């Protein structure tokens, strides 16, 4: 028996003003797996990702209908506090965006605001553990108090991953986390993602089908606001059921 999915989305519609960006998305996200969302630009994959931690709330004209449940709880319920939601659903962005603070302060930022730190020893432990999990510890352990913005692009992105991990989320959302990085830094991030899924559920938006194939176990293909097809990554890439999926993965559209 497989475990129940950690996230269930049912008939999710997202509107920006009059324009509908997502049309009735229904999708299950399995726990401790990497699920990638692929599709051409403007297909709604990032919109879907951002509705999982309610970052869409920041856009005044954005409206979400339908139901997204995490561990069985509807995150669009009236009594849901987005602050608590985002403590459980971390996010890594397209461009590395470390705060202009020290590496140490970057990692400790989230745990501090969530009151997870009781002592200095706690803080040090969280910093070391998060940086180790993000595969950055050995590179920065001697300069924790230098600025995070002084690191290379790939290191900055791993710092952002460490920063997200530090809050101990259950789910990590990644919005094209390697698109601003060179191939070597990308490879490091991809290995890291594979390592991280042991502890976290990961949803990754990517433009690169090779990346989706390399890092994810499940793939969902979006096209013009519709979820066209989803399934095991291997199957979706070798025997797509829908013509649009086939066209996309063979490079005819997108």
């Amino acid at each position, binding site marked *: 028996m497989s475990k129940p999915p950690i996230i269930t989305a049912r008939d999710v519609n997202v509107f920006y003003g009059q324009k509908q960006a997502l049309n009735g998305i229904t999708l299950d996200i399995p726990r401790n797996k990497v699920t990638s969302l692929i599709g051409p630009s403007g297909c709604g994959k990032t919109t879907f990702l951002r509705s999982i931690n309610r970052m869409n709330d920041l856009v005044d004209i954005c409206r979400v209908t339908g139901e997204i449940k995490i561990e069985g709880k509807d995150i669009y319920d009236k009594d849901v506090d*987005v*602050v608590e939601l985002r403590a459980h659903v*971390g996010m890594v*962005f397209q461009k590395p965006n470390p*705060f202009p603070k020290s590496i140490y302060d970057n990692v400790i*930022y989230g745990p501090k605001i969530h009151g997870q730190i009781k002592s200095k020893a706690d803080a040090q432990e969280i910093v070391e553990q998060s940086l180790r999990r993000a595969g950055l510890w050995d590179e920065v352990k001697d300069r924790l108090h230098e600025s995070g913005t002084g690191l290379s692009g790939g290191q900055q992105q791993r710092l952002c991953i460490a*920063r997200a991990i530090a809050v101990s989320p259950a789910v990590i959302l990644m919005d094209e986390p390697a698109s601003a990085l060179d191939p070597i830094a990308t490879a490091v991030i991809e290995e890291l993602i594979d390592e991280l899924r042991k502890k976290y559920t990961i949803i990754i938006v990517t433009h690169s089908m090779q990346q989706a194939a390399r890092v994810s176990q499940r793939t969902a293909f979006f096209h013009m606001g519709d979820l066209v097809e989803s399934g095991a990554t291997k199957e979706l890439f070798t025997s797509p059921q829908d013509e649009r999926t086939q066209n996309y993965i063979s490079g005819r559209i997108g």
Partner: protein
Amino acid sequence: MTQTEISFKGRKRPLETALKAAFFLSSVIAIAATVGIVLSMLFETIRFFEHVSLSEFLFGLKWSPQTAIRADQVGSSGAFGAVPLITGTLLISAIAMVVAAPIGLISAIYLAEYASNRVRGIIKPMLEILAGIPTVVYGFFAALVVAPFLRMTGGQLGLEVASESALAAGLVMGVMIIPLISSLSDDALNAVPNALREASLGLGATKAETIKKVIVPAAIPGISGGFLLAASAAIGETMIVVMAAGLAANLTANPLEAVTTITAQIVALLTGDQEFDSAKTLSAFALGLLLFITTLFLNVIAMRIVNKYREQYD
């Protein structure tokens, strides 16, 4: 087969040359005028220091520039210690900054982070109107409304408030520089990349936490640059202090007393008929140069900070 002869010789383009010269001249005129002003101030200042020593000017505690016309009259030599003027200027500017810095910064945070586009569209132009009010109107307001009000209120509380108090001038000057501070701080806050806001909110920080811990710290260089420019504007401000601060060169830190400022003294020294080689008249140039150096220094530091900060995020 014949080959067409080609030539790369250009024709004369007199208009181009003339325009280029005109552009160059226009830019030189502004610079030349500034250099001329500075030099003339410098020469007159040097002449002033033939009468009064530099150390007396910079460290003297008494300012009383009235020199007698004939040498045998009483009080034939004035006192030219600029310290009371410097402290008066700083006192009024400090009061202005105490008023303007928090109000300007907080209103900038509201505008940049909380206000909807509609509210922003109303408030920003209003602040700009505030910035466009002629300073003589502020001066007027300070002298005829604020100063009497402070004197009356102070009287009821049993405090002795001079009719031309530093407080009145400082408060009104503070209102005058609020738009300057809020507009420069607003620019600095807006220059903080949205990615940082998202990073913080994405970690579950509230809006207030994000502003306090990420946005404002990231904008601090730009904000402090704005503060320095505002301080420089306050130090150089003239009309308000001429009308509201008075001419008594008191050496005091009490905001309820009358003080005078460098600018107000320059106006007083040069109003009316003057002999152009008396120490009294020449002292105005020395004060002018002192003021110029101070504000130039503040402006240069401020611009450096602001520019350095801009590069950081481009």
